């Protein structure tokens, strides 16, 4: 048990930082697109998640846990924004490392997981009770599996690009997203709202930023050689 918690933390550290996926090409000139995602407009009021139904989870959160659909950081930065190359991708090698998706304290960690088509995904249950994972896929095949306490991780992958909302039927407040993309170049912003897509061969790219509540924005960026371009996004927030 301890080993898995440590592994979970390590992954958190790696996944959390803004250096997104996408291995650089050996020797070829490779550019980087980085930037920051912020919002304007009035934020919806985050509500406290009521976990009273599951005492195991209430004890794991000394401070109240807020809903995660509009998480922001300092200076209007927006967290859990998936920034990826939506057009102009020149067929980089597929990402093969396993995406870890953890259920801890009746929450999905990370709230949003970006992955490439066919990339292996492992779902862990680190709670002292059963969860059930129900990805509400429409394009991909939908499934709904329970994971009792201590059950082996569920290993799967998706074969079509899709923004798949994930819910736990047993704990209705648990929500997350599997963002399945055709391109390996993607990054999920942390509380600083920054992202960085490295290892991009020269070419004209369309960079898209997606957020579950504030919508999607795209920008055109052209990479000459081994240069670094910035692309900032400003999403509009509505109170209700």
């Amino acid at each position, binding site marked *: 048990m301890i080993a898995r918690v440590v592994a979970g933390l390590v992954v958190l550290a790696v996944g959390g930082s803004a250096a997104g996926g996408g291995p650089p090409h050996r020797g070829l000139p490779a550019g980087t697109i980085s930037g920051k995602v912020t919002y304007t407009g009035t934020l919806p009021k985050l509500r406290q998640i009521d976990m009273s139904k599951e005492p195991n989870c209430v004890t794991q959160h000394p401070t109240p846990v807020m809903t995660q659909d509009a998480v922001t950081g300092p200076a209007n930065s927006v967290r859990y924004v998936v920034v990826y190359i939506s057009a102009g991708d020149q067929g980089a090698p597929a990402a093969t490392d396993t995406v870890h998706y953890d259920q801890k304290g009746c929450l999905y960690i990370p709230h949003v997981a970006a992955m490439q088509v066919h990339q292996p995904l492992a779902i862990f249950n680190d709670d002292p009770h*059963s969860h*059930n994972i129900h990805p509400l896929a429409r394009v991909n095949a939908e*499934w*709904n599996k*329970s*994971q*009792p306490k201590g*059950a082996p991780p569920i290993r799967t992958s998706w074969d079509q690009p899709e923004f798949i909302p994930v*819910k736990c*039927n047993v704990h209705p407040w648990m929500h997350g997203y599997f963002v399945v993309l055709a391109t390996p170049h993607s990054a999920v912003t942390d509380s600083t709202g920054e992202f960085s897509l490295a290892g991009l061969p020269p070419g004209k790219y369309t960079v898209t930023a997606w957020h579950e509540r504030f919508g999607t924005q795209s920008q055109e960026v052209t990479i000459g050689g081994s240069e670094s371009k910035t692309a900032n996004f400003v999403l509009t927030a509505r109170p209700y």
Partner: protein
Amino acid sequence: MTHGVATSHAPPRPQSFLRRHVFSVDHKVIGRQYLDLALVAVVTGMVLSWIMRFHLGWPETPVPGLGKLAPTGAAGGVITPEYYLALMTMHGTIMVFFVLTTAPFAGFGNFFLPIHVGAEDMAFPRINMMSFWVTLVAFLVLLSAFFVGDGPPLSGWTAYAPLSAVGKDAGPGQGVGQTLWAISIAIFCVAQLLGSLNFIATTLDLRTRGMSLARLPFATWAWFITSVIGLVAFAVLMPACILLILDRVAGTSFFIPAGLVISDRLQPHAGGSPLLWQHLFWFFGHPEVYIAILPGFGIVSQILPVFARKPLLGPRVFITCLIAIAFLSYTVWGHHMFLSGMNPLSATLFSVPTLVITIPATIITLLWIGTLYGARLRFTSASLFALGFVSVFVSGGISGFFLAQPSTDIYLHGTYFVVAHFHFVMGVAAMFGIFAGTYFWFPKMFGRMMNETLGRWHFWLTFIGVYCVFMPMHYLGLAGNVRRYSAFTDEYLQPLIPLHRFITIAALFTGAVQLIFLFNLIRSRLRGPKAPDNPWEATTLEWSTSSPPPHDNFGGRQPVVSHGPNEYGSAGPRDYVMQADPQ
């Protein structure tokens, strides 16, 4: 020794093995086929109950090998909540339909009703054969739910809408599995309707000379009344299943109201009524439990006089009570729905007939006990199981008092008290009826005697075992333990877990004891000692022909009946007078 009149021409005797043993129209072969199907079904159902009981006692302990058998349902040997409910649904459906309706009614009934009335075969032999094969198809369709889509359905044997009617959004197993369940039950209804048609036509029209309705043996009375109940009950369940299938696949809204959000999707249905399914289902459901128990009444009333060596007390009263139960069984279905959102006034209306129906049941029990007065009881496996039936039926029937009144049902509905009640009456009493019937009629059906010592061991261990399994469930119910739970995570259930472990151990023990019965069945069928024509010195017609009976039951002679079935304890050289004895 038989006495009778040469019939003008016997039916042509089928020659090929296939015609004589597989696709045979002989009611005896069909009766044996039904009993074999019920045997396979009861073993399947029992294994499912073992897995469920083990999971309730020790939720986290993996069952070795189960992970490979059911990789999705029991990854690593620990079954998931949805797989537990799937096993529960299949356990309930298999036991109610393919064991308790098939064995005592279709199995023994098919074999012995024609002989009891003195006929050569059922009224419509080809339809009779078809009803078995359609039942087998229904059983295979039901079992295929294990291997198709995402597993068997999880909405229980009652399959309440909209959980059963919405489709795969309602959870794993509710996609293909639930549709297969509905199709299997619809097919089963067709089979049962054909079976009932045959039973009624044979009893009314093919009775031999002298066999008036009053002289019908008690088992045949029970099969006849059960088939009348079955005719009406299954005729209602079939359209209900058809409407459910249409709701699931054709987009109609018989049972699904508007505005349902399931798995975060607004369902494209409007206007249906979930209570409509409950009314249609339970209009069939309660008569179904009488279809399961009445043949048991008939078998016990057939067996007790034989081993008490005295006539059944009040045979006419017994038959009148059977008929009273048949009528009343159609007026009580609402007691399953006191708290279901039905108009509360109708709860009071349904509770009265439910309590009134206990009167004929009490009378029949008192008649059995009265028959024992002044008897010279002989103890064989058959008579022990018949006596066990009386004891277990008393226990099960009495717990019905609590559930028949709305005021106490407020607390006990949906708890293990209900599980204890229906298991005692259907899961144990009806099974004791089947065991008694098997030990009693095995010599006649196969021409060989069963081993009495094994039979007695089987009785004593099972009798004590079932009380250890199901009596504690009453206590769980009183403590408010809710049924159909795959795990006990609520705080108020923690102190009850030791009781669940005791029940699990008792259930595994009682289940293992059934292997004695299985071994006895197989060994006696192969190497049991030769059975005489009338080993128990009984009076009904099947004992005045050879064991096993010839193809046309009476060896070319049609029996003439001149006595009732109840002539025991008479003076003279023999203390019984057979029905076929001359005046």
